């Protein structure tokens, strides 16, 4: 059973996909990631956090007219995938995701103890 799972899982993970462009911004409270995933609807977006790995996957949901013949294609694959390694101070329980018109906005908060603190220096 396990073996069968391993076999059926393999091709999915190896399926060729596009690398979506991203912007990553960090502020005192956490990290915000923006990813361009045009054509992906909410129900076809797959986000996964596995230990310190963040996986973003999306399948395009395009309605193409019947009998259409492609004459020029810059986007030649119907799916996106990108993997990031997160660092320890990020709290993956506090992850907010929002998908609007093909742009994913992902906010990952820093763990309380990792937020910057100002250290007061006292005069001796």
């Amino acid at each position, binding site marked *: 059973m396990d073996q069968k799972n391993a076999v059926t899982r393999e091709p999915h993970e190896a399926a060729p996909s596009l690398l979506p462009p991203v912007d990553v911004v960090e*502020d005192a409270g956490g*990290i915000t990631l923006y990813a361009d995933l045009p054509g992906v609807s909410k129900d076809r977006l797959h986000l996964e956090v596995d230990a310190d790995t963040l996986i973003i996957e999306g399948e395009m949901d395009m309605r193409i*007219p019947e009998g259409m013949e492609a004459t020029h*294609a*810059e*986007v030649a694959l119907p799916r996106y995938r990108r993997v990031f390694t997160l660092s320890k101070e990020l709290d993956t329980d506090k992850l907010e995701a929002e998908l609007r018109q093909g742009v994913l906005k992902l906010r990952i908060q820093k763990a309380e103890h990792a937020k910057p603190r100002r250290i007061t220096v006292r005069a001796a």
Partner: protein
Amino acid sequence: MDRSLFSRDLFAELDSLQRQMQQAFEFSPSIRGFARGGFPAMNVGSTPASAEIYAFAPGLKPESIEVNLERGVLSISGERASELPAPDAEASLHVQERFAGRFHRVVTLADDLDPDGVEARYRDGVLHVSIRRLASAQPRRINVN
């Protein structure tokens, strides 16, 4: 294969192969070009009754996209605002790959299209423009009496 038993310069062969491939993939390279890597990325297709253009332009307001069709030339323009913090904000930018700013792309299409039969929809960040072919240009079955 049948051209010559003794192949010419290997690089010349490769060059010619590359050009043939390009011809095969890009049916009719337009004089305005089809710059790859531009924003938005575009796919173009055709059916007997219409031309279908898909522009992958995520994160726009539908009302801010300008689509014009003039004599078989379709132009798509607009602006994508940057969501990044101002440079003086207390934030650091680790990765910056997404397009920001004004964009303008032009596609030359066939000239049998009906300027009154254009429909544009924006969904999940993809602009889909469907242009009907002129009725006179569509294949018709001619009855033989």
